C-alpha cells in the first residue's frame, strides 16, 4: 500500500517536472530580432541623439527642456526594450529592473522634496 503511494508520488513529481520543462521550452522559443532590425533601431537612436545635440546650436526656447526629456525617455526605453530584449523576455526580468528604477525615482523625489520643503 505504502509502495503504491510512493510510486504515485514519484509519478506526480515526474509529471510536474516534465510540465515545467515544457513551459521552459516555450519560454526559450520566442521571436528574436534580426541584425537588420537592430541596425535600424540604432539608426533611429542616432537620429534622436542628433536631434538632442541640435538643441545646443538651435534655440528651441522653452520647448528645449521638454523636448530633451521626451527624447531621453524614448531612447531609454528603446534600448531597454529592444537592445536589452525586455520586450521579448519574461516579465519577471522587467519587474526586477522596474522595481529598482521606481525606487531610484523615489529617492530623487524624496531628496528633491527634502531640499525644497525642509531646507534651512
Amino acid at each position, binding site marked *: 500500500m505504502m509502495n503504491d503511494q510512493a510510486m504515485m508520488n514519484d509519478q506526480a513529481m515526474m509529471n510536474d517536472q516534465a510540465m*515545467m*520543462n515544457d*513551459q*521552459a*521550452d516555450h*519560454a*526559450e*522559443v*520566442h*521571436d*528574436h*530580432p*534580426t*541584425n*537588420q*532590425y*537592430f*541596425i*535600424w*533601431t*540604432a539608426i533611429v*537612436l*542616432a537620429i534622436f*541623439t542628433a536631434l*538632442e*545635440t541640435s*538643441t*545646443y546650436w538651435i534655440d528651441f526656447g522653452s520647448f*528645449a*527642456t521638454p523636448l*530633451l*526629456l521626451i*527624447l*531621453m525617455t524614448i*531612447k*531609454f526605453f528603446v*534600448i*531597454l526594450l529592444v*537592445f*536589452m*530584449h525586455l520586450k521579448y*523576455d*519574461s516579465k*519577471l*526580468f*522587467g519587474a*526586477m*529592473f*522596474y*522595481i*529598482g*528604477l521606481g*525606487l*531610484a*525615482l523615489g*529617492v*530623487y523625489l524624496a*531628496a*528633491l522634496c527634502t*531640499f525644497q520643503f525642509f531646507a534651512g
Partner: protein
Amino acid sequence: MADTAVHESHAPTHAPGHGTLGHGTPGHGTTTGLSNNKLAMWLFLGSECLLFGGLISTYMLYRGRHAGDPAPGQVFDIPLTSVSSFVLLMSSLTMVLAVNAAKAKDDRTTKLWLTVTALLGALFVGGQVYEFTVFYKEGLGFTTSLFSSSFYSLTGFHGVHVSIGVMMLLALVAIISRDKITGDKAEAVEMIGLYWHFVDVVWVVIFTLVYLIPA
C-alpha cells in the same frame, strides 16, 4: 513584429549553478523555468538604478552651487560629449550583433563584435579622461565646488562602469578563444551585453540631464 526570426537555443551544457541542469536550454531545472543567471543580472541592474539614481539626484540638487568657480555652461564641451555619446550608442549596436552571433554559434563573428564593442568603450573612456583633464586645467578640481564634486562623482562612477565593461568584454573574448566557457556560451555573452546596455542607458540619462539641459 514583422522583422523577426524564430530562434531556439540548444547549447549543450550541464554545468551546475547555471540553471541548466541536465538539459541544453538555460532555465531548465529552475523553479521559475527561467535562467537564474539572467534573473540575478536583472536584479543587479535594478540595484544599479539605485546607485545612479542617488548620484544623479545629488548632481541635480548641487549643479547650481558653484559661486565664483567654473560653471557647467563654461566648461562643458558639447560637441565632444555628443561624439562620445554617439560612440557609446554604436557600441550598444555592436554588442547586440555579438549576442546574435553567439546565439547563431558563430564564434568568429562573436569575438569580432565583442572586440569592436570593447574598442568603442575604450574610446569613450579616453574621451572622458581627456574631458576631465581639460576641466582640471580650467580650474575645476574635485573639491572646487559642490557642482564639481557631484559632477566628477557621477560621471566618474559611470566611467568606472564602462572601464569594467571593457575589461569584461576583453576577458570574454579571451575565454571564448580558449573555449573555456563551461555553461551556455550565448547566455554568457548576453549577460555581459545586458550590463553593457545598462551602462549605455545610464549615459543617455546623464547626457541629457547633465550636459544638455541648462542649469
